[in-house]
């Protein structure tokens, strides 16, 4: 058996702040004038990967799982040579194809045929190879009727199929895939899974990042769980997934247990005790994804009879930007009194239109008037995972802002 991937002590540090983004030469010059001999200002940095080591052999299909921001994508980018590690070593034997996005480099003005050649070339195929596999690619994509139409007229599903069709005919020794199966209809997903199984059976090595744990379980013999930039577990896919899932359950109970929340405000006659997240059908939900329906259940405990209490919360980004504040009074719902003891309120959200990321609740209970604070600034975190909200294969992330609207585009041309 041939060793295909050897990763040794891989670390990657990202600098935060303005050094990373859109720096202006002007600013840099001013800085240099201000402290001509001094060093450039030290910027904050984070370790996206910390001392990651693993190997993978021929024929292994390795699923990489972990939360948002755990370092999965960074790992794939380093392995694909897109970004360079701060330290450590990667050795890959054989031809690598990385598929971090379906249809990279597609151009709207070009036809399906032209895009197959362009995309194939971008993914590392020779022109001759594309020519040889052209018919198979077109066949796989199922868009043969429109192959000479500019792809700006394609539906998102067609583009996706075309993009994956090219990728499926790469025949690399090592394939690196980031979350492509989460997209497309069931028939397409089945095709993708078959294509990946074909790769596995022909002895290719596949590294596969996905939030679709069922797909990981079906496809992968082995799983690697990455947490905070480090490998937390490496072993049989089934075991890894089970441990990963149970980590959520454990945290859900403790993480949303509010009875011990620190630095909370208020006089304390009535307090939040727990925040539960449920699916619309009422079952506890461990993973919340963009666009999911969600029920928030706010448990409280009242020491005595409370008159006219008002419940609500604010939702902040990690950086402290207020996204929304809501409460039942805003909906015209009045609660005349709350008996001593335990109880709960539920808030049903049809679609959680937040981009993936980490958010912060600040819960409050006030009286009448609202100056009277019984419980205030009770912190709870909310983690929103990636989802294909537009069913296009393009994932939202923090670059797309804070929220998104349920929406449809229409293209009309005169």
């Amino acid at each position, binding site marked *: 058996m041939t060793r295909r991937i050897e990763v040794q002590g891989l670390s990657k540090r*990202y600098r935060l702040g303005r050094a*990373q*983004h*859109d*720096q*202006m*030469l*002007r600013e*840099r010059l001013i800085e240099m004038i201000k402290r001509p001999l001094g060093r450039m200002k030290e910027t904050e940095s984070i370790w996206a990967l910390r001392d990651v080591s693993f190997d993978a052999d021929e024929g292994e299909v390795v699923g990489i799982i972990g939360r948002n921001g755990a370092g999965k994508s960074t790992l794939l*980018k380093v392995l*694909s*040579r*897109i*970004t*360079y590690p701060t330290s450590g070593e990667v050795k890959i034997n054989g031809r690598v194809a*990385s598929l*971090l*996005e379906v249809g*990279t*480099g597609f*151009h709207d*003005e*070009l036809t399906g045929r*032209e895009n197959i*050649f*362009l995309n194939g*070339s*971008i*993914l*590392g195929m*020779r*022109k001759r190879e594309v020519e040889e596999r052209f018919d198979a690619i077109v066949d796989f994509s199922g868009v043969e009727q429109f192959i000479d139409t500019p792809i700006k007229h394609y539906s998102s599903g067609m583009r996706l199929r075309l993009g994956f069709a090219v990728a499926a005919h790469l025949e690399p020794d090592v394939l690196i895939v980031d979350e492509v199966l989460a997209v497309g209809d069931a028939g397409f997903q089945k095709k993708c899974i078959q294509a990946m199984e074909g790769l596995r059976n022909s002895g290719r090595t596949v590294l596969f990042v996905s939030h679709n744990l069922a797909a990981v379980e079906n496809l992968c013999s082995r799983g690697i769980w990455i947490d905070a930039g480090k490998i937390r577990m490496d072993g049989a896919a089934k075991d890894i997934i089970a441990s990963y899932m149970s980590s959520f359950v454990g945290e859900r109970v403790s993480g949303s247990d509010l009875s011990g929340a620190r630095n909370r405000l208020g006089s304390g006659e009535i307090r939040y005790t727990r925040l539960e997240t449920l699916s619309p059908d009422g079952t506890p939900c461990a993973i919340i994804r963009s666009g999911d329906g969600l029920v928030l259940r706010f448990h409280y405990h009242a020491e005595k009879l409370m008159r006219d209490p008002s419940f609500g919360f604010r939702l902040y980004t990690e950086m402290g930007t207020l996204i929304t504040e809501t409460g039942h009074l805003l909906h015209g719902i009045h609660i005349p009194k709350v008996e001593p003891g335990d109880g709960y309120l539920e808030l049903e959200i049809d679609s959680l239109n937040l981009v993936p990321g980490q958010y912060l609740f600040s819960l409050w209970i006030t009286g009448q008037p609202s100056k009277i604070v019984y419980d205030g600034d009770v912190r709870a975190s909310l983690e929103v995972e990636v989802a294909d909200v537009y069913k296009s294969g393009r994932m939202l992330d923090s670059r797309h802002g804070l929220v998104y609207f349920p929406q449809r585009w229409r293209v009309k041309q005169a």
Partner: protein
Amino acid sequence: MIRELWAYRELVYFLAWRDVKVRYKQTVLGVLWAVIQPFFTMVVFTLLFGQLAKIPTDGIPAPIFYFSALVPWIYFSSTVTNAGMSLVANSGLLTKIYFPRVILPAAAALGNLMDFLISSVFLVGFVVYYRIPLGLNLLLWPALVVLLMLLSLGLGAFFAALNVKYRDIKYALPFVIQLLMFTTPIIYPASMVPERFQWLLALNPLSGLIEAFRYVVVPSHALDWSLLELSVVSTGVLFAASVAYFKSTEKAMADLV
């Protein structure tokens, strides 16, 4: 770097082909643009600088004098601009796939060659129309084209790498190119520059190159060979320095763009 470019030559070709194809597809006049831009600039120059300002053209018919310089100049300015923007404009590719980053500016340099060739053919037609006999000087042309490409790519790749780091390059670039145009013998002959400023002219690698492009189609045009020799040397130095800078920043590009 040359070896990498060779290994990825097909990708350079496909990206250049994409740029050319899209450029011609999206415009009503398509390929004609390759000729329209130098032609109308030449007309304006002839009227403004030739007729009004009476700037000498070294005995060359004014339209030929301007056109022969504008063809390489337009290649140079559009390549430096396109190559300079290439990394930022293709950030989607840069962050999703590995390839030697220099391919993007190289594809811009190759893609613009199409326009250059079309307008060069037009120039030859022009020269024939003016009954200027073409001579063996034409043999120098391929070497000049290579030199022009190296110079444009060298400067373009340098700006591209800089642009990834500092986004104000986008605003500075058009300005730099405009200044360069006035300090290059395009609207005036090199011979018009006073003796004590000739060294300034020599500092600009474009000076010798543009003059040589004139010499190629108008054999009677006196070429200052030392100016061209200086161009060759300074282009070489500039290209090497730019490649070294590009290489040194290449690793961080995907994180910055």
